[in-house]
């Protein structure tokens, strides 16, 4: 691109195309090396580099390098390496190939400096990611994938509409801070909102993530929503509405998480909760809060993928992720259990784990700026998410009732599980090292952040208060569990906003079926059944009636024929019905018509 390196997305995008042509060990080696080459390629980029060219009269900037873009590119490359290592055992070329291209499109979107390039990668993200859902090859995942695609195509179209109107209004295609005013800004805002799972648009996350294949969910949790959050930071940083949207996102999903049975769906809800913190950080919009959002994304991608990997390993080995059907797996999968606990400690922001050093920046910047209501909501979510994502997920999967031993009282007991495959364990181990490494050696992460901020997460007050908050939240969980007041994991689903389209659209379909097909039936009955025959009848019946009426005088005067008047009429009607008249009668009618025409012409 600039002579010494390629466009950062090219290695992953083109690498993905090559995967199906390779076999066995070569394929595995290639799959692991491509992200490493991609990461090495990033070292050739310098902050401030831009690459522009003109196409169809538009000035495009497919690559704009700054600290924020580089940070995201680093974490996306690490994430895709872990995802590919986790899926290394797969024979499914489509999943590996689209997975690598999926990461490539996320990297492309991050470096996009104009909306045309962004739109291209935005759509590519949708198309390449849906294969991760379909890869599970079940009826459920097929349906879920289609709903997923509908959401993302809608998002793409809104983005297209938004920037087209904006280009018409301002003549600018640059991805820059936009004021949330006017149709174009709102279209772009909502397009990003769909992908960033704003409240109401969040259902695709909790619908598709649990339906995807064991490794598919790991891919999906890393890229789509994070690209959207990045784009939000590029376009709407400092928009106050985002603070409230973000606060809502931290708040409502945890209630759903408590009563949800599918552990991967629990993680999906807690992911929306974590995205909420980032959206708040972007909404506050100060250098410190933007740093917080970026740091949190970096940490989040690693611990969330670790949690989804551990659940993926459980699904891979036992074929289930329902909390009601699992338990006691720490005996057969001790390593997976340990890695899951590290991920859980990170998401709960326990000191020395990655979530602590990143979430704190956002919390502190909300407090510094005096957003105390939002701060209270976030503190509530931080305390409340701990029992669910931090304790409950590992507890129900690996501890709780023992499903590894045969037990007559537990219908799903006797799981013949064994430890996850080596590649999965390696991926989880590396992610765990990152989680602890970021938590302990936080300056490495802070140095990569886009703005220069002096922030110290490890103060005595902060560490003690955080441990107090989490310990007492866990205490409440323990007491509720002992008193048997904590909601049991039972086989069920819970209604969410997707009811409106999954049931509502079906209702609308039925309503339109009744209404439109009813009109159709009525029209058929009236028009085809009544009107047309009546017209057909009248076309021959009417002239015969008129002629009969005109002829009545003639028939009664000229009684040359021996037929009676009634018979004359009958004969005429028969002639009219079959369209056959005596030649003389036809000639007479023609003469009359010509005569009329002649006189009409004469008097004109």
């Amino acid at each position, binding site marked *: 691109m600039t002579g010494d390196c390629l466009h950062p997305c090219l290695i992953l995008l083109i690498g993905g195309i090559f995967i199906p042509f390779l076999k066995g060990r070569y394929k595995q080696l290639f799959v692991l090396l491509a992200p490493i080459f991609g990461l090495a390629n990033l070292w050739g980029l310098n902050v401030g580099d831009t690459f522009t060219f003109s196409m169809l009269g538009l000035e495009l900037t497919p690559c704009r390098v700054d600290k924020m873009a580089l940070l995201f590119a680093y974490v996306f490359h690490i994430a895709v390496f872990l995802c590919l290592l986790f899926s290394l055992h797969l024979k499914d070329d489509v999943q590996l190939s689209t997975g690598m291209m999926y990461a490539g499109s996320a990297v492309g979107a991050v470096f996009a400096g104009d909306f045309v390039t962004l739109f291209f990668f935005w759509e590519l993200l949708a198309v390449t990611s849906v294969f991760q859902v379909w890869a599970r090859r079940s009826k459920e995942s097929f349906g879920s994938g289609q709903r997923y695609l509908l959401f993302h195509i809608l998002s793409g179209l809104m983005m297209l509409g938004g920037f087209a109107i904006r280009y018409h209004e301002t003549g600018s295609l640059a991805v820059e801070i936009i004021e949330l005013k006017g149709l174009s800004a709102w279209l772009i805002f909502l397009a990003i909102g769909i992908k960033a799972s704003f409240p109401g648009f969040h259902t695709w996350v909790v619908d598709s993530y649990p339906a995807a294949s064991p490794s598919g969910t790991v891919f999906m949790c890393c890229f789509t929503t994070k690209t959207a959050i990045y784009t939000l930071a590029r376009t709407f940083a400092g928009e106050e509405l985002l603070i409230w949207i973000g606060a809502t996102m931290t708040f409502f999903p945890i209630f759903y998480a408590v009563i949800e049975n599918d552990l991967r769906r629990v993680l999906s809800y807690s992911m929306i909760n974590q995205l909420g913190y980032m959206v708040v950080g972007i909404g506050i919009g*100060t250098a410190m809060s933007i740093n917080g959002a970026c740091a949190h994304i970096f940490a989040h991608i690693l611990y969330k993928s670790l949690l989804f990997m551990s659940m993926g390993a459980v699904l891979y080995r036992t074929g289930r992720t329902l909390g009601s059907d699992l338990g006691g797996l720490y005996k057969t999968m001790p390593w997976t259990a340990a890695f899951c606990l590290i991920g859980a400690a990170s998401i709960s922001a326990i000191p020395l784990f990655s979530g602590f050093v990143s979430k704190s920046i956002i919390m502190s910047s909300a407090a510094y700026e005096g957003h105390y209501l939002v701060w209270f909501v976030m503190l509530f979510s931080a305390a409340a998410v701990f029992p669910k994502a931090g304790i409950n997920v590992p507890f129900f999967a690996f501890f709780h009732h023992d499903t590894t031993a045969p037990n007559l009282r537990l219908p799903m007991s006797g799981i013949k599980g064994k430890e996850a495959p080596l590649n999965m364990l390696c991926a989880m181990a590396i992610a765990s090292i990152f989680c602890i490494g970021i938590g302990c050696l936080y300056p490495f992460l802070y140095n990569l952040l886009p703005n220069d901020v002096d922030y110290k997460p490890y103060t005595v007050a902060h560490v003690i208060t955080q441990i107090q908050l989490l310990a007492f939240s866990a205490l409440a969980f323990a007491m509720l569990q002992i008193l048997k007041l904590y909601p049991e994991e039972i086989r069920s689903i819970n*209604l969410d906003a997707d009811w409106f389209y999954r049931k509502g659209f079906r209702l609308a379909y039925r309503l339109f079926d009744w209404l439109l097909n009813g009109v159709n039936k009525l029209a058929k009955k009236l028009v085809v059944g009544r009107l047309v025959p009546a017209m057909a009848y009248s076309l021959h019946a009417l002239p015969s009636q008129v002629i009969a009426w005109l002829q009545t005088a003639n028939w009664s005067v000229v009684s040359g024929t021996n037929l009676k008047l009634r018979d004359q009429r009958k004969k005429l009607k028969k002639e009219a019905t079959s369209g056959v008249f005596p030649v003389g009668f036809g000639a007479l009618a023609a003469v009359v018509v010509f005569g009329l025409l002649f006189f009409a012409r004469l008097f004109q």
Partner: protein
Amino acid sequence: MNRLRRDKKFHIWDKPENVQKLIKGFFILCGVLLLLDFIPFQHSSFGEKYKDKNHNHQYDPGEEFVDSNTNGQYDPSRFDGETWFGFYSVYGFMSCAVLVAVATVMRKFLKREEDYYDR
């Protein structure tokens, strides 16, 4: 059966005593954490920005943000509950309790059979 018994020896949480010990240890930890609040290490982090207005903050170069509630002035009567005794402990405990209470009520209205959408 023999194998099952042999397995049990290796697994620490199969013994209810161990679980009891863990829970007891955890309760003691919570007690100690609460007592830590007697040490005055806390200060309220609210409105730091307004307090430090005199010296330039590195992290806010634009300094554009104005709180509409206070017109940018730091209000000392503002909430400082962070510094109260046991604030974080009570808040943590209540968060989980409220969460579970609300979720239990929510479940009554929102729970459906697993094949609800396939019907």
